[in-house]
Each structure stands twice: as structure tokens, then as C-alpha cells.
């Protein structure tokens, strides 16, 4: 199921402002790719452009190619809705639907798309997804309670369960642990390690230890100054990035000599 994504010469704009310039990168299937870099350098923007969530913002657009298994996601005949069905996303802040129960939140991807499914199949899917997100044991007795009643870490795992319930090929995570305590963070990192058996995972993180712990490859984004576009400075296996990076800027950033 997991798929490979090739990005070539991707320029990302907000209106006339060039936010990220000429990104070239290959994201390997069944692995975790981490994106690190200072705030405002375009990591999240780049991540959102991978499943065409970027263009939800008025005036936002991209130039260049994002190819998943031979198909350009920005081709004129591609519906962004179909792209997002294949490339799921988990956001920085947990955002379960407040009107829905835990069960309905997990089933939301199917329910909202009006897919017909037998009740027993749906029950199975919900249980499988919640187990996949390591949340089943904590919520199995209160599936009909509102999702917003869970703790922050549980809510975030609920959002992950919701994202994997629609069986995407790729899972994008935009700083999924930045609002969580260390224990919940550990739970989600363990979960990512399990999930990479089935999905291609791309994660944006401000936590370099996290990138070092979980990822196979790491990309370092940076920008040369305020108002300048962000660039992908270096993309290498994580071990290399954190031991002997090719670029001086990368070394400065990961060793804390930044700015």
C-alpha cells in the first residue's frame, strides 16, 4: 500500500509570495521521513503541499511536480479530494470533530464520504484503527462518548486513528507531538514505528531528538532571511544528518549554533 513520492522543482506560493523554493526530494515508502528546521522556513507548507491541503488557503498555489507512483498529483485531471483520500494528514493540534462520538470520529472518513458499509464491518474497522493507534484499550468502554472528552494525547491518537481508518497510502504528520506531554509523545513515536510497516510517513518536527529517534531520512529546511523563500538545504539519511552532515548550516542548526 505504501507509496513513494518524488518531488521535483517544487515552488510553493502564497499569492505572489514565494514561500518555499525549488524542492527536490524522494520520499521512500515504508519509512519515516522527518523534516526539521527553524520556524517559518516552510516545513509545514511543504508538507501541506504534498496532499494539496496547501491550496485550501486562498491564493496559495504551487509550481513543479509531486509524483506519487508515476502520477503527478498536481496534474490538471487530478481531483485534490482524491489526492487527500490517498494521503492522510494529522495536524499539530488535536482536532476531533466536537459533534461526534469517539466511534463516529474514527468512522468519519467513511461516514462523511457516505460510503455504504455493514455495521459489523464498520465496527471491525473502528476497532482495527483504534488498535492501530494504540487507543483501543483506553476507549473501548466509552466509544459513544464525545471525542472532545479525551485527554490531549488521546485526542491526538484518535486523530491518527481517524486518519488511518480511510487506509491512506501516505500519512503526513505536522508536529503531531508539539502539544503533548513526554509520555503521550512516546506513545505516538512508538505508534509511528509500527505504522511505518504499512504507510509512508512524513513528519514535521521541532524536536531534533524525535527526528533522530524515529526517522530513516531527514530533510533540513532553512531560509536565508526574513522575506526570503525557504529551501531544502540538505536531505540525507538521518544518521548522516546527525553525525556528519554535508552542509555547514545543517551542522550549525542541529548543534544549536543557529542564528
Amino acid at each position: 500500500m505504501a507509496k513513494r513520492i518524488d518531488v521535483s522543482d517544487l515552488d510553493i506560493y502564497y499569492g505572489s509570495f514565494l514561500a518555499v523554493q525549488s524542492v527536490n526530494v524522494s520520499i521512500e515508502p515504508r519509512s519515516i521521513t522527518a523534516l526539521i528546521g527553524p520556524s517559518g522556513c516552510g516545513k509545514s507548507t511543504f508538507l501541506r503541499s504534498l496532499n494539496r491541503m496547501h491550496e485550501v488557503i486562498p491564493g496559495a498555489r504551487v509550481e513543479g511536480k509531486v509524483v506519487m507512483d508515476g502520477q503527478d498529483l498536481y496534474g490538471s485531471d487530478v481531483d485534490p479530494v482524491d489526492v487527500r483520500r490517498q494521503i492522510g494528514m494529522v495536524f499539530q493540534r488535536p482536532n476531533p470533530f466536537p459533534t461526534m462520538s469517539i466511534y463516529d470520529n474514527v468512522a468519519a472518513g467513511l461516514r462523511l464520504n457516505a460510503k455504504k458499509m455493514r455495521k459489523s464491518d464498520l465496527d471491525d474497522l473502528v476497532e482495527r484503527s483504534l488498535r492501530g493507534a494504540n487507543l483501543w484499550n483506553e476507549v473501548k468502554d466509552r466509544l459513544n462518548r464525545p471525542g472532545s472528552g479525551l485527554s490531549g494525547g488521546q485526542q491526538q491518537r484518535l486523530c491518527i486513528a481517524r486518519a488511518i481508518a480511510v487506509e491512506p497510502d501516505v500519512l503526513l504528520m505536522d508536529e503531531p507531538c508539539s502539544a503533548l506531554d513526554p509520555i503521550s509523545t512516546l506513545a505516538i513515536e512508538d505508534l509511528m514505528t509500527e505504522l511505518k510497516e504499512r504507510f509512508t510517513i512524513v513528519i514535521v518536527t521541532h524536536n531534533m531528538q524525535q527526528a533522530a529517534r524515529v526517522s530513516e531520512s531527514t530533510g533540513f529546511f532553512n531560509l536565508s532571511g526574513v522575506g526570503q523563500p525557504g529551501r531544502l538545504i540538505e536531505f540525507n539519511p538521518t544518521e548522516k544528518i546527525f553525525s556528519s552532515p554535508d552542509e555547514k548550516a545543517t551542522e550549525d542548526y542541529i548543534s544549536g549554533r543557529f542564528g
Partner: protein
Amino acid sequence: MSTDLRPDAVAATPARNPALRSRRQLPRFAPTGLFGLGVLLGAGLSAATGFSLTLTVVYGVVLGTLVLYVVARRVEGGRKAFDRLVTCLVTCAFGIAMVPLVSLVWTVLENGVRRLDGEFFNSSMLGIVGEGGGAYHAIAGTLIITLLTALISVPIGLLAAIYLVEYGTGRLKRAITFLVDVMTGIPSIVAGLFAFALFALFSGPSIRLGIMGAVALSVLMIPVVVRSSEEVLKLVPNELREASYALGVPKWRTILRVVLPTSIAGLGTAVTLAIARVVGETAPLLVTVGLVNGTNLDPFDGRMSTLPVFAFYQLTQPGVPPEPAIDRAWTAALLLIILVMALNVVARLISRFFAPKTGR
């Protein structure tokens, strides 16, 4: 995050922090007592010049504020005294704002309750001269016309609000917002004349229909619905929309299944309050619906009666003797107030029962 800085807590450790040393403070009952003393003084003053209730209240409030201020200034210091002065002013402003409201409700209750009987709800004015009669026809007319108005305005207003929040961009959105703002301010008689002119185009100037009134009221109600539902829809966090998009849900379905359910409580309140806003309109109904003594429940056939217009005519053309008609006018006014209050209660209930549950 309440840090305990009450004077007695501070007083327990006076030695350690001289900046927080305890100040002399008036006892808890003192402000009320001092104010009461001022009021008594005021009463005495007004009694000396020939007693009058208005003067007593005015003197009392001014003197009470003054006494409290002066004493607080001597005992507690300038800052506290000023605090007490402003508290008095704010409370007075609130009292003044409440005077017309309470007086209005009281007057209407006092005068209206006299005819609040079974006959008022059961009979129309058909063949009634003088005593008796009722507003059955007007109550039914008001309900029918308001319902029609809601049927016209709610879909249009809600869809317009959804367009403005979810789809509209650039010049068209700004133009619509501007026009809605302008429409919110048009005088209600203009709305009535608009509906009248519209129907007169087809059927001549003598036409009076219930539906004309509904159209006129819709002109007034649509902008209110658009404005308030727009604000409610804007409150739905963008994260929920993005979460839905990220699951591969199309935009229209996101609006239908995520945005609207999340904001249903606010939308219900908005619509109910908009209805309450138009239910008592008189001028547009006067020129479009008119009045009839008998009961007409068909808004597409001839004149109808409505409570506001009923009250207007009972008051302005009471006949001989005038008292029974004037009583009927008061009761109609009372019913309108009850109707508006009921709608407000309904709005509150809607927002309580449909608000998203937190589960805690």
C-alpha cells in the same frame, strides 16, 4: 489563577513586604449603609420641599454617592474612593437603563391582563361593537405570516451566509456584505412599500395579501439572518474543516456534515432571534396586509389580521365607547411581548441543547 491578595491575607505578613501593608478599609456593610444614609438625607430634603418620589430618588442617589465618596476618601484613600464612586455611577447607569424596560413591561402587564381571557383567544372581531371580541384572527394571522416569512428568509439567509463564509472571495463578497449591511438599516416602512409596489405591479394598487406581508418582512429578516449566521459560521474552527478535507471529504459535504452540525446551536439561536425581530413589525404589514374583522387563514387570498396592526387600529380607531377597544390593544401588545419573550427562551434552549458536548 486567582492570587489571594485580600487585605486580611496580606495583613498576616505585614513585616515582610511593606509595599503590601494593609490599608484601612470600610467594613463590608458600610457602602450600603452609607449609601442608605445618603438616600435618607435625600428623602428628608425632598420632604422639606414638598414630597415627590422622583425628587427623592434623584436626591437620594446623588447624596448617597456623595456621602459614600467622602467617607471612603477619608477612611480608605483616593484610589479606593474613586473606585466606589465609579461603582456607584455604573450601577446608576444600569438602573437608568432598566427603568424604561421595567416600566414598559409593567404598564403593558397592568393594562393588558384585563382582557387576557378565553374570549380574547377564541373570537374574532366579526360583528363586535364595543365590549367583548378577541384577537383570534390576529393571532392566527401573525403566526401564519411569521411562519411564511421564516420559510422565505431562513433558506435564503442561511445559504447567503454559507456563501459569504465558505465560498465568497474578493469583490462579490465585499459587495454582498455591504448590501446586507445597508439592508439591515432600511426603515421597515420602505420594506412594506417595496412589497406593495412589487405586488401592485401585477395586480393593481388595491391588492392586500398575507403573502405580501411575508415578503415585506423577509426583506427585513434576511439581512438579520445573514449577518448573525455569518458570525456563527465564522466561529467554526478552520481546523475542523481542514481535518475533514484531509480525510478526502469534498467541500460541500464538509459544510453539510461538519460545519453546519458544529454550529447548529448558534444557527438556531440566530434564526429564532431574527424571527423575534420581525414578529412585531407594524408598518410593513399596515400597507401590505391591512386588517379585517373576520378570520382569514389563507395568506394568498385577501386581507389578513396581525397582532401589531390589530393593536394599532384598536388604539387609533377605538369607536364608541373607546375603553373596550383600548383594552384589546393593550392585550394584543402584551401577547406580542410574550411571543418575543417565548422566542428568546426558545433561542436559549436551542443553544443549550444543541451545543457540542464536551463529555466531561
